[in-house]
């Protein structure tokens, strides 16, 4: 018992650091939406500044200047502390002003990657200047040993923990009582609210960054005497700190500190358990704690992290549709083979490594670039295969080439497990979870001496029918045939990823990346697709990992560590995470790759490589979220658009075209056949009744209008019918009840809808946008004219809506009116029985609105029943057969346009006259 208590108390030291760093992370996240991976390195930097000041030197980290400057005599504690904290605050301010303020409108991932870059930059700079020596500092807190019975603990840890807790309490009071504190909490909740209240979110963020860096700096200084630490360890502190911040929901400071202390204590306890119970793994249990805690909190109470940051966000970056895949592949293959032959040994190894890292980078492209799921664990997943391929070959006697495939399959299983949290959480939270997973897996397995020998896991030579294809040794190293094998695998993977982008699956993944809700509305099974993406990515990463194992011949954790995984993610982001060319370029730029070798050979500067690369990373993120290949893509896109325009594609709706002539079936409204029936449908949000007992029927072949003042519940009703809002009552389509079914099922059964905020995928062409839901919508339906191919159907819809000329343009480049039409086309192409249109005339002027009306009539004539919500009274009154008027969630009037127009209740609802007479006396 006492031993447990002892270890728990021992953990207070680390726990205090985690708590302080977590506090710092909460401050920067709350005020600027940045997940500050660099917090640990800020702590490291400040610790070094302090240590140097205590020796009488000033730390100057700028390359080219001497490392330190002399200030005469060593400084005593308090001045050194205050000055170091001032340095830290200034550093925080600089980081905000130079890096994170320009990134206000960038996607959260971009900001996190920039922070990662800063972290690598600073750690790299310090490591270059000081080597990897531990910081050597005299004790700050008294180091008496306190005993209580058989418990003994060094007092400095207790003081440290109490200090941090004290800081947390003081800051909490500060945030409650001062105007600055109120303003911070206010701006954190709503930026718009801040602007209209005269609060400058920018200034608030700057101050908070200064405060956060000072706190991180304090932690760095105070831990240095207790546990001698090296640069890398400070960076690793970030994982438990992030876990503690997640537990505090990135909001409550005291909880973050207490959680940090708790994690420290639990980790220490885990170490005790590992050493006393031989059944438990000898390493890795402490690293499991952050992961387990995060999963418990997030999966059990999956409310997403509060979104922070600017009101408007840019997209992640263009994912262009590859053209001429095979010719490009052939050309690149030939060039690569020539390079393999001609390059000398070191460069050939570098090129081979580049091929392998390119494969792993492409897995990041699929999982993050295409599907939008931020996974920081891809390298670790590669490591699963890397560490398995040896034992699989040796112990299970599975020969090459099956051994690496089996290893990759095993990695796929792990990859799917990694991807499971993505079903309930997304964005940066998912990033934190994957990082915690990587960190835990590395400790549990890759570093675990139970499983991995001191010199790593041996990997047997790959051979096909006795002919060795391995990288060779001695004079034969590195063999051309191994390099070619890696090239072949990489080319195959690259071609696969390019075709994936062009496939229906690729469009669906991009749709999920852009907007999950809209993808679900288009009939995409979001959960299934996410798992697919993780599985495909994991298999690819596994192949890369196995190849890396063959290249190294003896696998150690270093190749697959969590930190290196972060570096790889940053590299891929830098190179361009949304395209094949980006993935390939990432391979070339990766550590150990071709460029790295080149830099090292020419300037013997491999240590500086990470510093320069990090600097480049930060610049690139600021200037272009699409990575280095971004400008190239933009130029290509401009050229294509110009060629298209030359061929006559219009920039606006051509309203001169008359509607196409009558199609085969001319439908007649049959009042006896009800297509859509609503019975007593109500929608409640908390205490608010948004829709109140709506009962109405829509006859087959009708165009029915749904109108009413703002806030009347029209869109909520559409949401209920299409499955996006839970409701009571019943909705029946052609006699089939829809209640309880998710949106994509309702699509399959014959319902189509558009959204008020047109949720098109800007990266995809018009055709791709339309195709996204097509297959899912048609699956499982028997249609009597099934013989029409998918292509014909799309062409037919394009013609009907006048979109033929723009069908290959990316949707992001179209005018508002055209986008309305694409949105309708997307819903129409699945041949819905009932089409729900939410404000289709939004942004159209009177002429265009009229044109739209005639098109809608043609659509109805070809057999689709239409329910239309709009504010354009001219359109609605002129087009609809029946109109229902909603106010305060209830239907207040129904009838023909003429009846509605002369209905006093309706006029009063719009002009707000109701009750005015009674009250104004």
């Amino acid at each position, binding site marked *: 018992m006492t031993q447990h208590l002892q270890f728990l108390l021992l953990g207070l030291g680390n726990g205090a650091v985690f708590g302080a760093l977590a506090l710092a992370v909460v401050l920067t996240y709350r005020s600027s939406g940045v997940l500050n991976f660099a917090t640990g390195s800020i702590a490291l930097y400040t610790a070094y500044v302090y240590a140097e000041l205590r020796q009488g030197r000033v730390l100057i980290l700028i390359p080219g200047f001497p490392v330190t400057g002399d200030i005469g005599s060593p400084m005593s504690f308090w001045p050194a502390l205050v000055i170091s904290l001032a340095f830290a605050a200034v550093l925080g301010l600089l980081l905000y002003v130079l890096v994170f303020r320009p990134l206000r409108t960038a996607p959260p991932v971009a900001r996190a990657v920039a922070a990662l870059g800063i972290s690598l930059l600073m750690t790299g700079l310090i490591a270059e200047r000081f080597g990897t020596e531990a910081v050597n500092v005299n004790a700050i807190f008294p180091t008496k040993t306190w005993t209580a019975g058989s418990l003994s603990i060094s007092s400095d840890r207790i003081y440290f923990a109490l200090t941090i807790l004290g800081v947390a309490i003081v800051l909490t009071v500060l945030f409650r009582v001062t*105007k600055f504190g*109120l*303003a911070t*909490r*206010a701006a954190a*909740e*709503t930026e*718009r*609210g801040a*602007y*209209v*209240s*005269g*609060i*400058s979110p920018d200034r608030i963020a700057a101050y908070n960054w200064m405060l956060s860096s000072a706190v991180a700096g304090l932690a760095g200084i105070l831990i240095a005497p207790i546990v001698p630490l090296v640069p890398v360890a400070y960076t690793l502190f970030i994982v438990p700190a992030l876990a503690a911040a997640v537990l505090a929901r990135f909001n409550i400071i005291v909880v973050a500190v207490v959680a940090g202390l708790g994690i420290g204590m639990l980790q220490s306890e885990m170490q005790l358990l590992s050493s006393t119970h031989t059944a438990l793994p000898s390493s890795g249990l402490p690293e499991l704690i952050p992961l387990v805690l995060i999963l418990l909190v997030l999966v059990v109470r999956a409310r997403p992290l509060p979104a922070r940051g600017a*009101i408007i966000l840019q997209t992640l970056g263009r994912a262009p549709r590859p053209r001429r895949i095979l010719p490009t592949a052939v050309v690149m293959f030939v060039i690569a083979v020539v390079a393999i032959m001609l390059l000398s040994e070191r460069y050939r190894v570098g090129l081979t490594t580049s091929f392998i890292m390119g494969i792993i980078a492409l897995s990041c492209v699929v999982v993050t670039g295409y599907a939008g799921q931020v996974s920081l664990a891809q390298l670790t997943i590669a490591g699963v295969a890397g560490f398995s391929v040896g034992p699989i070959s040796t112990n299970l006697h599975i020969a090459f080439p099956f051994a690496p495939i089996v290893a990759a399959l095993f990695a796929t299983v792990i990859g799917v497990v990694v991807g499971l949290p993505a079903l309930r959480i997304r964005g940066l939270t998912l990033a934190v979870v994957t990082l915690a997973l990587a960190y835990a897996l590395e400790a549990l397995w890759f570093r675990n001496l139970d499983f991995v020998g001191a010199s790593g896991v041996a990997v047997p030579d790959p051979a096909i029918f006795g002919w060795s294809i391995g990288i060779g040794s001695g004079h034969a190293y590195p063999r051309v045939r191994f390099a070619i094998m890696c090239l072949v695998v990489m080319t195959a993977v690259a071609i696969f990823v390019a075709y994936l982008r062009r496939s229906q699956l690729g469009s669906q993944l991009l749709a999920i990346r852009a907007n999950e809700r809209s993808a679900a509305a288009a009939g995409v099974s979001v959960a299934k697709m996410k798992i697919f993406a993780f599985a495909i990515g994991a298999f690819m990463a596994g192949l890369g990992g196995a190849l890396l194992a063959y290249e190294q011949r003896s696998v150690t954790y270093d190749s697959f560590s969590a930190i290196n995984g972060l570096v790889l993610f940053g590299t891929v982001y830098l190179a361009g995470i949304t395209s094949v060319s980006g993935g390939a370029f990432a391979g070339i730029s990766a550590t150990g790759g071709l460029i790295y070798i080149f830099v090292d050979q020419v300037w013997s500067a491999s240590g500086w490589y990470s510093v320069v690369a990090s600097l480049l990373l930060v610049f690139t993120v600021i200037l272009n979220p699409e990575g280095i290949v971004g400008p190239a893509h933009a130029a290509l896109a401009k050229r294509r658009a110009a060629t298209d325009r030359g061929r006559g594609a219009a920039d606006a709706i051509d309203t001169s075209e008359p509607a196409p002539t009558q199609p085969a079936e001319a439908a007649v409204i049959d009042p006896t056949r009800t297509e859509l029936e609503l019975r007593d449908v109500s929608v409640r949000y908390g205490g608010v009744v948004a829709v109140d007992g709506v009962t109405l029927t829509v006859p087959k072949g009708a165009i029915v209008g749904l109108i009413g*003042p*703002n*806030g009347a519940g029209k869109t909520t009703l559409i949401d209920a019918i299409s499955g996006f809002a839970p409701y009571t009552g019943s909705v029946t389509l052609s006699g089939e009840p829809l209640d309880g079914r998710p949106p994509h099922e309702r699509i399959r059964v014959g319902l189509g809808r558009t959204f008020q905020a047109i949720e098109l995928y800007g990266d995809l062409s018009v055709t791709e946008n339309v195709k996204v839901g097509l297959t899912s919508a048609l699956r499982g339906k028997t249609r009597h004219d099934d013989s029409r191919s998918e292509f014909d159907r799309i062409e037919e819809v394009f013609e009907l809506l006048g979109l033929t000329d723009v069908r290959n343009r990316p949707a992001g480049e179209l*005018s*508002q009116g055209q986008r309305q039409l694409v949105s309708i086309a997307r819903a129409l192409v699945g041949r819905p029985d009932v089409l729900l249109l939410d*404000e289709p005339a*939004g*942004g159209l*002027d*009177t002429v265009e609105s009229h044109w739209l009306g005639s098109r809608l009539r043609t659509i109805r004539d070809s057999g689709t029943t239409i329910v239309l919500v*709009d*504010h*354009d*009274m*001219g359109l609605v*009154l002129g087009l609809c057969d029946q109109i229902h008027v909603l106010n305060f969630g209830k239907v207040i009037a129904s009838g023909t346009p003429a009846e509605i*127009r*002369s209905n006093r209740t*309706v*006029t009063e609802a*719009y*002009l*707000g*006259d*109701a*009750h*005015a007479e009674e*009250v*104004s006396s």
Partner: protein
Amino acid sequence: MTAAAAQEQTHADDSTAPVLQCTRLSAGYGSVRVVRDFDLSLAEGQVLAVLGPNGAGKSTLMSTLAGLIPRLGGEVHVSGEALPSGRAAAANKAGVVLVPDDRALFTALTVRENLTVARKAGGPGVDEMMDLFPALTKRLKVSAGALSGGEQQMLAVARGLVQRPKVLLIDEMSMGLAPVIVADLLPIVRRIADETRAVVVIVEQHVKLALAVADQAMVIVHGDIQLSGLASELAASPDRLEAAYLGEH
């Protein structure tokens, strides 16, 4: 013209420099132009009611005036000073205060804290706000998220007032509120204009109530001004109002 209207007219002519002036203002977002070539001139203490069906561009107009969205064209002057486009902080500093349609309250802060954090030097204090909105007096320590709809709306307006606005823009004050509450709230707009001499622009659904408290009014449909003039005149011609909203019979 009635005597009262004539008095209103001269009252407007007394203060020479307009407090809020828009010249050929165009507003919208992305590729959508929602308001076209909008002109406006308001003197101190005047209340303008902006009416019209939804999707007409009224909220976009408000957000553009407050600098939350960049202008697509034209100029805005407050007391003669030009406002830069799309800079919310500058607009707020110049005295243009928006009470947005979603209120954007700080729900985690109490009523008192919402007011303290927004208060500008020289602006009315919490006590003066309680005079204007007595219903909030008992709720000072309650967090804004726990207030009723009507109370939240009052707090949102109060938060605007403590900033000593020259131009107060109130977007959809009555949204989601029961008509009885709206009837109590709208007259406060008149009081604000009379006592603080601020220009008040209200976007409203409740046409009759809005016209009762306003000096001028305009009806915007599809981004164009269909009707504009003295509020009293518009209130006296319900047929023209109906036609503007619902189209001709």
